[in-house]
């Protein structure tokens, strides 16, 4: 199946700082999602981005499908951004991972006031 690697595993920031989280994947995908798991355990959809670039407020994401990586940018971080950020991918039709999300191990983000 598809392998997903996220980096860095941990990230500590001061409020107001910017950060970049990376997700590498091992095969072609037709679904890539970024999630934020908040301290209460809820998985919140951030982006559905199998390719291209999207922005939503202080967050933006870019997926370069041909090079098999995606980046999540967080600007002007706030304490409420703390939590775990997951990248998840699903493979193309015909493969064993079609339609099924494989998650990375996550990046634990802590933002201090």
């Amino acid at each position, binding site marked *: 199946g598809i392998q997903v690697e996220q980096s860095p595993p941990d990230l500590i920031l001061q409020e107001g700082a910017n950060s970049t989280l990376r997700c590498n994947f091992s095969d072609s995908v037709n679904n890539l999602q970024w*999630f934020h798991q908040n301290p209460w*355990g809820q998985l919140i*959809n951030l982006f559905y981005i199998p390719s291209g670039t999207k922005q939503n407020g202080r967050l933006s994401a870019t997926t370069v499908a041909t090079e098999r990586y995606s980046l999540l940018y967080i600007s002007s971080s706030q304490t409420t951004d703390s939590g775990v950020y997951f990248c998840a991918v699903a493979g193309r039709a015909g493969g064993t991972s079609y*339609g099924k999300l494989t998650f990375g*191990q996550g990046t634990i983000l802590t933002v201090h006031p």
Partner: protein
Amino acid sequence: DARVTQTPRHKVTEMGQEVTMRCQPILGHNTVFWYRQTMMQGLELLAYFRNRAPLDDSGMPKDRFSAEMPDATLATLKIQPSEPRDSAVYFCASGPGAVYEQYFGPGTRLTVT
């Protein structure tokens, strides 16, 4: 506000007991997934339904786990008999199709003593 709902939110049970978790997918979504999150394994797919038909349950221990969709508004995950190693958070997710964004419910936190 369309959301995936799950019940119960928390369940504590003794080893050997049957556990049933329920999920109501977002109306109109035809794909339903069950995932499990543990500290050791992270988030992993257990089962996957499309149009109520099971497509893949290779991630599930077959001897004790079963997943069904009795109708389009209800998906169930049963564990019988439960074991302490089944302690985890179980998430249900739904989506409008195999290649589209998946939306996660709040999860059921299961503790088996």
